[in-house]
């Protein structure tokens, strides 16, 4: 299992800069938004939590279809399905590799990028903590979407239609926590709910992901 984690991480990092791409996308988004809505600091500060969270969602979405695609095409997935490690474990490891290459760097980069958007300093803890708690959920839910569309030639657009509605609760609590942080309010309630969603998603989604993979491999 650890070997699989290492392999997937190595692959993700080698294949077109797994770390870099999501981050670069995140950065570009934070540069584009002021062009779109105007440079007024108060306005930017107000929408910064939402922009950063939506950006995290989209950045996570970008690399989703690669989670299983290559392994499905070259047959590795079938080997993994018959390996002693249960497919649920494979699903979890794949999601973990996805998180390490997207969720983790986004969480770390959120604070400096928040400054670009004039995010109040007091919102940073809630934002970073929220991203740290919420992005694992994005990865495991995304892995489910990737498993659904793995057999398709052009699953990219479909995957966003399938996965984005499932991201709704995560986005909502995460952005709410950051907004409350920005307003100087107590943010522990949305953060706890976010943690709950993440924990439940990490615990349960690998099972449905594995089920979807088995259906595709049959």
């Amino acid at each position: 299992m650890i070997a699989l984690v290492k392999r997937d991480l190595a692959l993700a990092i080698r294949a077109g800069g797994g770390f870099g791409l999501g981050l670069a996308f995140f950065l570009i988004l934070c540069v584009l938004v002021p062009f779109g809505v105007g440079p007024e600091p108060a306005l930017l500060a107000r929408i910064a939590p939402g922009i950063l969270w939506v950006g995290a969602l989209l950045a996570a979405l970008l690399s989703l279809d690669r989670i299983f695609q290559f392994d499905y095409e070259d047959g590795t997935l079938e080997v993994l399905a018959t390996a002693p490690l249960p497919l649920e474990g494979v699903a979890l490891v794949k999601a973990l590799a996805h998180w390490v290459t997207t969720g983790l760097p986004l969480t770390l980069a959120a604070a400096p990028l928040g400054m670009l958007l004039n995010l109040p300093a007091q919102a940073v803890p809630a934002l970073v903590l929220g991203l740290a708690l919420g992005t694992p959920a994005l990865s495991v839910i995304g892995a489910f979407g990737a498993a659904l569309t793995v057999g398709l030639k052009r699953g990219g657009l479909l995957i966003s239609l399938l996965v984005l509605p499932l991201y709704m609760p995560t986005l909502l609590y995460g952005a709410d926590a950051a907004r409350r942080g920005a307003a100087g309010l107590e943010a522990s309630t949305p953060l706890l709910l976010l943690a709950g969603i993440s924990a439940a998603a990490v615990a349960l989604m690998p099972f449905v992901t594995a089920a979807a993979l088995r259906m595709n491999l049959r």
Partner: protein
Amino acid sequence: MSIWKYANPKQFMHSTAWLVPLFSYAAAGFIAVGLIWGFFFTPDDFRQGSTVKIIYLHVPSALMAINAWFMMLVASLIWLIRRHHVSALAARAAAPIGVVMTLIALFTGAVWGEPMWGTWWAWDPRLTSFLILFLFYLGYIALWQAIETQDVAADLTSILCLVGSVFAVLSRYAVNFWNQGLHQGTSVPVATGGRTVDDVFFVPLVISMIGFGLLFVALVLLRTRTEIRHRRLHALLARERAAQ
């Protein structure tokens, strides 16, 4: 004899042949009576004026939009557990009807909201969850259409329906939290079904609701029969090609 005998496509085709016209006529009758009664023969509400007449479309369609998803959930579960093809096809048949019902509910809600709340759209929990439901329907239908192998498509859409249901419920409560979190105390006066409605409005509303329910059943039966025929058509064509 049990309900499962209808899971056999032949048995299903045989048993439902006469049900489709029956339900269609009943649905047409109930909807006609409900809507004509509601439109022509009910008084205006003293506060809402004539917009109260929208209720005869809005509430039944919203009800069926949710029920259609629920029916798809049950049918998906039956497919995943007992592998009855009719069940999977019925779920597929119901989705576009659910889309139409959701659209009607959203549209009538918007034109009702405009004069009543002064806005076409508000990010009210109920409205927002309906929009999310609409997205779930779209994703479900798109997945059905994207996958070519029918049984795999049935499997994957069923599991999407299951997961989607959980997340739809989660979103429903999350949205509640979010809205209250933002605008404490402001509540948008969404009509809450029959409870506060006077009999004058309630009787045609119930008739219309029954009509929409019958319409849904009739359409699901008709569309399921079409899907069964469609599958048989493909099986025959494939066999013919193989024989050549």
